[in-house]
């Protein structure tokens, strides 16, 4: 019979997990840190909005005067009178009035034709490329994770809303934290004290068991006294439709996520990077209505969030980046939808932003195998944000990288 020592056995039981385990935070943990260790004013705060499923860039930033646009996708194209024009060539989807206002206030940068060389059409692979900032797969860690790697361990630095940690926040040594949405009802009475016995760390725990115990102990740290200021009910997110093709991941309550982020920023949470997400953009069929509602939700949620933080003393510190793993094919398919494509627009917003267009709009006639050209590498945007928002040399995270998108005010 095989035998191993008890301690070794128990250590090994959990040892298969990634070396760095994610910390699960309660709102109270963050609130406590906000009180004891608030983020100094004028410290930049980056909010990353991930749109899962591949947002159709051509029905978001619409080349409404280009006849090729209409002829390629007659079922799902928007006519001249159906859009929010930004200039005589390009317009926003009619549902994006929130972002249109930001554009008019010169707080919205739209980077056109963003992607990377040799585009991959897999949701899961392309999203990994965007989140790792590594198209050739040299890096498996996330770009924010690598930023965390270069800093002192601090579970408050980068936080994801929702209990699943995206690769974006996973470094080689450190992992961002997860903050689940929704009200946490903490057990009380004798059961609470008995369960807390299980929440103690044990020297015999491997990483997964330690994480299981840690999640219980986090739960009991929730003090009603501290969390009361954050317990105000979040405004309810508008109901999302049943979405055709919403089968590529992501959350469905962006407004609620951003609402929690706004409250915690206002409270002074010592957090430099927030990660939120919305799913449902995989619109292979019956796209027009569903995509418009989704991108309108992104636009409204971000505009409302920015107006929330503007009412605090952090308004000038916050920048929002919104991206998706790819755009969609120029030509519509037979199902009133579009298949996976390549480049798409990236949106960067906030008081620090020099509003306007960056990068060239890809041609609708000079396509690569039916797909739009990539005119801006997404790492140009990352490099500018890493330097301007994370105050870190871009090369440390991206390797040697010369391109920049100068969208931040100096």
């Amino acid at each position: 019979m095989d035998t191993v020592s008890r301690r070794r056995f128990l250590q090994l039981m959990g040892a298969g997990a990634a070396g760095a385990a994610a910390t699960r935070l309660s709102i109270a943990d963050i609130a406590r840190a906000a009180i004891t260790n608030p983020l100094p004013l004028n410290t930049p705060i980056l909010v990353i909005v991930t749109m899962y499923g591949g947002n159709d860039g051509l029905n978001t930033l619409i080349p409404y005067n280009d006849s090729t646009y209409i002829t390629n996708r007659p079922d799902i194209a928007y006519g001249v009178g159906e859009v929010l024009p930004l200039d005589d060539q390009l317009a926003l989807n009619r549902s994006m009035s929130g972002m249109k206002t930001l554009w008019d206030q010169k707080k919205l940068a739209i980077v056109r034709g963003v992607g990377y060389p040799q585009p991959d059409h897999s949701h899961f692979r392309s999203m990994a490329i965007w989140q790792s900032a590594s198209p050739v797969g040299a890096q498996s860690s996330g770009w924010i994770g690598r930023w965390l790697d270069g800093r002192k361990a601090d579970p408050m630095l980068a936080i994801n809303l929702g209990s699943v940690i995206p690769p974006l926040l996973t470094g080689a040594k450190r992992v961002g934290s997860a903050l689940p949405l929704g009200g946490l009802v903490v057990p009380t009475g004798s059961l609470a004290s008995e369960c807390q016995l299980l929440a103690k760390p044990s020297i015999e725990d491997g990483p997964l068991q330690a994480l299981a115990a840690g999640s219980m102990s986090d739960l009991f740290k929730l003090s009603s006294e501290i969390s009361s200021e954050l317990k105000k009910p979040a405004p309810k997110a508008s109901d999302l439709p049943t979405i055709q093709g919403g089968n590529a991941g992501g959350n469905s309550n962006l407004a609620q996520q951003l609402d929690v982020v706004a409250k915690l920023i206002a409270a002074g949470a010592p957090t430099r990077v927030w990660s939120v997400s919305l799913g449902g953009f995989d619109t292979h069929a019956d796209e027009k209505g569903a995509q418009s509602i989704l991108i309108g939700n992104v636009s409204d949620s971000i505009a409302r969030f920015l107006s929330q933080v503007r009412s605090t003393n952090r308004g000038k510190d916050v920048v929002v980046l919104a991206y998706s793993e790819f755009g969609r094919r120029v030509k519509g398919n037979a199902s009133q939808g579009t298949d996976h494509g390549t480049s798409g627009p990236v949106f960067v917003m906030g008081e620090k932003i020099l509003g306007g267009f960056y990068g060239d709009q890809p041609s609708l006639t000079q396509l690569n195998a039916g797909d739009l050209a990539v005119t801006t590498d997404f790492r140009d945007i990352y490099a500018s944000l890493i330097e301007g928002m994370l105050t870190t040399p871009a090369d440390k995270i991206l390797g040697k990288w010369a391109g920049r998108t100068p969208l931040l005010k100096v």
Partner: protein
Amino acid sequence: MLRGGPLVEPSSDSDVVVNTDRLVISRLQHRLGFGPRPGEYAAALQTGVSKIREMALTPPITDAGLAKVAALPITDLGPYPAPRSAERRVFNSAMREMTNSLQLWALDRMVSADHGLTERMTWFWHGHWATAISKVEAPLPMYNYYATLNKFALGNFKEMARAMVVDGAVLYWLDGGQNTASAPNENLGRELMELFTLGVGNYTEDDVKSAAKALTGYKVVRSNGIVSFRAKDHYSDPINILGVTQNFDADSLAMFIASQRQCSRFLAERFWYRFISSSTPLPNKSKIPDAIAANLSISDGVRALAFDPGFSDVTNSQVKAPVEWFVSVCRALSLMPSVVSKHLPVLDILRAFSQIPFDPPSVGGWPADEAWLSTASAQLRITNAEKLAKLGDLTPISALAVRDRVQGSADWLGVPMWSTRTQSALEQVRSDPITLTILAITAPEYLVSA
């Protein structure tokens, strides 16, 4: 004394010695099934690892436990009545009711099976060919989809692939019913290669476009999942897939892809990820790919996985996903989900955990391990453990002398060993069977590994 135990024996160097039979048998029961019923773990320790492994790999022709689960009255609800009409309200409530009973039915099957492997593999395949009722909406095609996965759960993968590429629910979910020769929809073709058969990086973009063409011409009736073939919408010229040029339709495409060497490798990787470790890759020397490739037999692959050294390696711990936790608790406490649902909102609870049968979050299926260890899940586990413990049959623990209950709870639940932390927590509450049960089923050692 149990032949497999006691778990801990004093040894000369004052350290303690562990019996790995307890680990392996625990894994056979929890990973290749949904956990032991009262007494099954202790009995298995008596029987020994090799016999138990063989038994775990050999389902009976008919499963007496499963036979007790009532057949499900799922019908074709027909087309949607006009929005906001009275008929639509009746239709919606019928659909909701049928969906709920479908979800409880699948949970009842997991709890009722005397032999866990077939239901466990059906659950695996549900996460593999992940298809969600959130989009399909109609219960009948989802029921048929699950029945097909169940039928082929341990069968031949080529036959499974042939059935799944023309399954009504899968086709609707991935827009396959709208894929025509004049304008192919790539959704199904891409996910077929990327997630179901070959894995990303093992085909080209041209292969995806070709696969989409091969899959053109199929129509699906949403309400019942009936699939038909319309030749005029099918792309009938020869196409090139993975270097081979010929005429392809859904059936020949499925057979062709399933026979690729890489398909067996990919399936072995998925087995490894879900049954052994999500954090370490399938070792190159693993015998699982060859075992599958020989005859495309799923049961041969599962056998190879059960004998793989990784399966018995203590480092390969895994977290019970919420459905697995709930079902294993029901089995231990002699609870039936459909009966529990008369006292507790079972489906709402699982929805709060973010895992409910028939509704995976994406075509990539459910996440694994760390994803389930959030603060929110801890709260849900504690709250619901209390409710389940109060409903359940606790005689396996209350019948024991108080001093035997802590070790008895490990034997009852199929836990190889409590840590000193959990052991001392359980010692404090052992006089109260309900609290002892709550703590035992929320303990890190029950949730993780085994």
